[in-house]
């Protein structure tokens, strides 16, 4: 009894599979159009992933916030090494470089270039020793940054802080904003494309309304009717995903040559990255999932009643 049931189950499965394949052929132009339409909407997500994943190292580069802590005069070497340890202890600080008074003057001289003659007349070194701090990437929020800066300034050895002013906060805010906008755009694109996929598949199935009614009338269970369509939706989603990946590969190589030299010039990035296997997987899974779900959807709404 069980064995015959399992047997029947397999038969059903193979039948569905063959049917889905056949429907695909019969659907003809409609199916092709549906696949291309799905590919177009998945392409949106592909493009978004391409742009945003390539933007993120740029954003990271720009996020290397550096500030300079000027020390008070007459700080002993012990105090300095003490401070160094303390700074290294802050999670917010990724690197702390000590610049002695002599090094500072040297740097200033290099900075002034031809005006460095000005410094030749100096009787003493007026520049303070300092720590150059690289702040860690976790520090995104301008408010957090502000409170961290005030903690730094309150250290006994510290005279003043440079670079922690408005500009750093602006930059940090800008990056937050860009990330937020990117995220929102990504979410909107995903919603749009998922909706388009589902509705495209809905429309192709709507074409077969009469067929579905007949299947029910001759004794098919609801799932027996749905399965071939769900299979078909999954196949359309999968093919759409593949097509989207192919198109974005083509676009990628077409643009790579155009934009790469510019990017190299500007940011020093050697090449635009393409998708990793994770993104490829994501696109295909999205296509398949939404294809399958989109194919179930039309059965759940009462448009399949007779007109």
């Amino acid at each position, binding site marked *: 009894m069980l064995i015959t049931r399992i047997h029947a189950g397999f038969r*059903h499965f193979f*039948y569905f599979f063959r049917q889905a394949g056949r429907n695909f052929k019969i659907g003809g132009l409609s199916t092709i159009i549906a696949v291309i339409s799905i590919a177009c909407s998945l392409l949106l997500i592909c493009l978004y992933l391409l742009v945003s994943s390539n933007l993120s190292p740029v954003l990271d580069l720009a996020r290397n916030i550096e500030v300079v802590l000027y020390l008070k005069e007459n700080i002993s070497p012990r105090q300095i090494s003490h401070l160094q340890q303390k700074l290294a202890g802050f999670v917010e600080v990724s690197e702390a470089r000590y610049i002695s008074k002599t090094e500072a003057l040297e740097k200033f001289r290099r900075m002034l270039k031809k005006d460095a003659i000005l410094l030749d007349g100096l009787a003493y070194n007026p520049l303070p020793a300092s720590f150059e701090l690289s702040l860690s990437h976790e520090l995104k929020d301008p408010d957090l940054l502000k409170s961290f800066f005030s903690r730094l300034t309150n250290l006994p050895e510290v005279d003043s802080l440079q670079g922690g002013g408005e500009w750093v906060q602006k930059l940090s805010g800008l990056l937050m904003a860009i990330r937020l906008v990117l995220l929102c755009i990504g979410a909107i694109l995903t919603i749009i494309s998922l909706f388009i996929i589902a509705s495209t598949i809905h429309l192709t199935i709507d074409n077969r309304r009469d*067929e579905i009614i*007949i299947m029910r009338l*001759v*004794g098919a269970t609801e799932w*027996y009717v749905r399965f071939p369509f769900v299979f078909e939706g999954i196949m359309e989603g999968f093919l759409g995903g593949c097509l989207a990946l192919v198109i974005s590969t083509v676009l990628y190589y077409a643009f790579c040559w155009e934009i790469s030299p510019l990017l190299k010039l500007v940011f020093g990035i050697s090449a635009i990255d393409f998708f990793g296997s994770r993104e490829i997987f994501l696109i295909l899974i999205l296509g398949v999932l939404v294809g399958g779900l989109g194919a179930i959807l039309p059965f759940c709404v009462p448009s399949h009643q007779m007109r």
Partner: protein
Amino acid sequence: MQPLSAIVQMFHVYKTFDGNCKALVDINLRIEKGEFVFLVGSSGAGKTTLMRLLFREEKTSSGQIIVNGRNINKLKDSHIYQLRRKIGVVFQDFKLIPTKTVFENVAYVLRVLGRSRFEIERKVCAALKRVGLEHKLERYPKRISGGEQQRVAIARAVVNNPVLLLADEPTGNLDAERSREIMQLFLDINHEGTTVLMATHNLRTVEGMNERAIYLREGEIAHY
């Protein structure tokens, strides 16, 4: 006549479409297992509507229907398929699936039951042979003539030896010769134990056979 031997019972069945079109009015009916019954009435009398109630394509407006021992008003939507698998229907407008071949249209009834490929092949070919279409298995319904479509619908209705066969005007598109063959087919099936309910407007068909006829006139049973 024990009550258990009835396959169709209708008690005070009414069917009203869109609130004002009374298609069936107070139908009381009893069909025994193994009977061959004609349903006769002119155009618009309600023959098709009565049949559609029997396999729950439509619900009754009021009244009870018992088919094969089950009250089909109380049948859950998800269990309707169980009812329909016991009933073979020749639809007046054929209702063939346009994207499936003649063979697949007939085979579908067996596919939903999960029958083996071998059994399907054997039964479908036998059924199509009985209606004289064994040479058009791979055609699509749009590519055969009206009468051929009707015969495919007949083959589909009888392929699984249903308990109840509903045939709605099954010879409307067939010539006299073919009609006689099909009537013989129905009689054979009836002898094998299937109850047959056949709707027709053709009084001659009824007169030629010595079977019970139910007359419908504007939704009412006229003469029993």
